[in-house]
């Protein structure tokens, strides 16, 4: 059923809409993210960019439209022209292929950095513990924190915590990484180390969707930039193009405040 051809977009959204009661948060969002592409979502707070991100791994359910990740419908199963709600177990399985990094890290405080990275593979893959541990150590080394593997989150700086959170999300070997304002809760001097790790990840070919206010990062790393406001995509395109030469008034007004 699902053709995993390389030309299937990693993420495809078709008229995705979401509302809480009468409050429409997403109004017919359509976009595509190709394999290996980095998409930056920017926009004022309340524009629906985080909600959209959370819909991609089914932390939120969409009310209308269609959303595919790697050719598979997110949270639903289609058979003929009928759509079935997915069993939580299937949804959980789907999420394992999608890594997510949160604004407030959400590391598990009762586990060390290494335990945080190992928890999901240990519980789900049931592989050899030694192999899993050395894999987790490799991931921590990748984010530059191998020697802090024995630290509890409370003893790590915000930047270090976020890097552990990235390693944790990578532990399930996802094909897509979602970042929800990963640097917004950090002290300014700690932002760089996190962006550096994300840049390395992008260069390694990971498909990424990043909700961010870091326009420098968007310009340097992103392949595509999407500007959202009021639950709609206002403008999208090449990051440098959109940032230096915005076409819409709303984009211009926003960028004049943040750049």
């Amino acid at each position, binding site marked *: 059923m699902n053709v995993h051809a390389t030309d299937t977009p990693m993420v495809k959204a078709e008229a995705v809409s979401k509302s809480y009661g009468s409050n429409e948060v997403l109004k017919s969002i359509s976009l595509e993210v190709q394999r290996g592409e980095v998409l930056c979502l920017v926009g004022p707070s309340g524009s629906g960019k985080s909600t959209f991100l959370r819909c991609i791994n089914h932390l939120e359910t969409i009310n209308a439209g269609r959303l595919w990740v790697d050719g598979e419908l997110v949270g639903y199963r289609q058979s003929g022209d009928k759509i079935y709600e997915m069993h939580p177990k299937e949804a959980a399985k789907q999420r394992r292929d999608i890594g997510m990094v949160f604004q407030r890290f*959400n590391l598990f405080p*009762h586990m060390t950095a290494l335990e945080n990275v190992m928890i999901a593979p240990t519980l*789900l893959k049931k592989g050899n513990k030694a192999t899993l541990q050395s894999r987790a150590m490799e991931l921590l080394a990748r984010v530059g924190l191998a020697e802090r593997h024995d630290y509890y989150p409370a003893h790590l700086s915000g930047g270090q915590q976020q890097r552990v959170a990235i390693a944790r999300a990578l532990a399930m070997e996802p094909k897509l990484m979602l970042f929800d304002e990963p640097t917004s809760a950090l002290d300014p001097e700690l932002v760089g180390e996190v962006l550096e790790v994300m840049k390395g990840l992008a260069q390694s070919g990971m498909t990424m969707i990043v909700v961010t206010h870091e326009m420098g990062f968007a310009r340097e790393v992103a392949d595509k930039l999407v500007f959202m406001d009021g639950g709609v995509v206002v403008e999208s395109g090449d990051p440098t193009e959109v940032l230096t030469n915005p076409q819409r008034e709303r984009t211009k007004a926003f960028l004049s405040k943040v750049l």
Partner: protein
Amino acid sequence: MSHLPSEGGGGRGPDAHATPEAIQAIRLRHPWRVTFAVVIVLIAGLFIYDTAVNRPVYNWPEVGKYLFDTRIVTGAGYTLQLTIYSMIIAIVLGVAIAVMRQSPNPVVKSVAWVYLWLFRGTPVYVQLVFWGLIPTIYKTITLGIPFTEAVATISTKDLLSYFTLAIIGLALNEAAYMAEIVRAGLLSVDKGQSEAATALGLGWWHTMLRVVLPQAMRVIIPPTGNEVISMLKTTSLVAAVPFTLDLYGRSRDITAVTYQPVPMLIVASIWYLAVTSILMVGQYYLEKHFARGVEQRPDVMKPTVETQTIGVVGVVDPTTPSYPSTAGETIVPPHNRPGGGA
């Protein structure tokens, strides 16, 4: 720490490392504090003297004689068993009811609510009397499919001893309180935690067991310790069932023969106090275990070279693991450092 030369006197520049002279102030006197202390000690001393010498009704030799009486010791054993079994059942049932109260299913939710309303709203003594009457109300328990021939019929009296009934009575009452304690614990865990676990692809069960509950434990344990101690004392009500082999029941039995209630009350009290004290020690270690990653104060434990040279954190134990860092200095995780708790 920057090593900028300090300007002006009094600063702690690089060469101000020598400890400054300690202040030798004359201590402020607190005459009222002393007076109160003396009065309180005096009253207490007089009371103890009076108890020991002037009141034959306490009959201390009698207390000594019965303190390790076989009946009392086995009674304490029964009391402990009642406490432990009923608390285990109450905790399991309490967790179930707490989870049921958060169920999306309205019927399940209402059942949990009604349970709470019923068992928390009636006195435990009344409930125990009720449980004692169960064998009278339901004389037999029949297994089988309704409206067909019974597979097996057992007399309730044979199946449920008064000891079992006492445990059921205590446990079902306690479960209502435990449910609320567990619920408070679950609510205390940040929503981001279960969200992060969900995003990793963990199912509900794994999320609960490995992420939410261990963190909720920090909130659940102190009031649960309270409940265990409270339960230990509530077991003295099982005479309502009637079960009479517990500590208080046995001490009353002995009183019925000796006609000296006061020494036996003291004997029972000493045992209750002793068990409570042991339970308190257990609670301390349990709390420490579940405080992992939270209990250390990061401000004191920051891994700076300075804190070690000054000796604020203390000498590094050579047995604790350390990892060479890129900068050259050795990094020891704070929880493995002296004074780092855990």
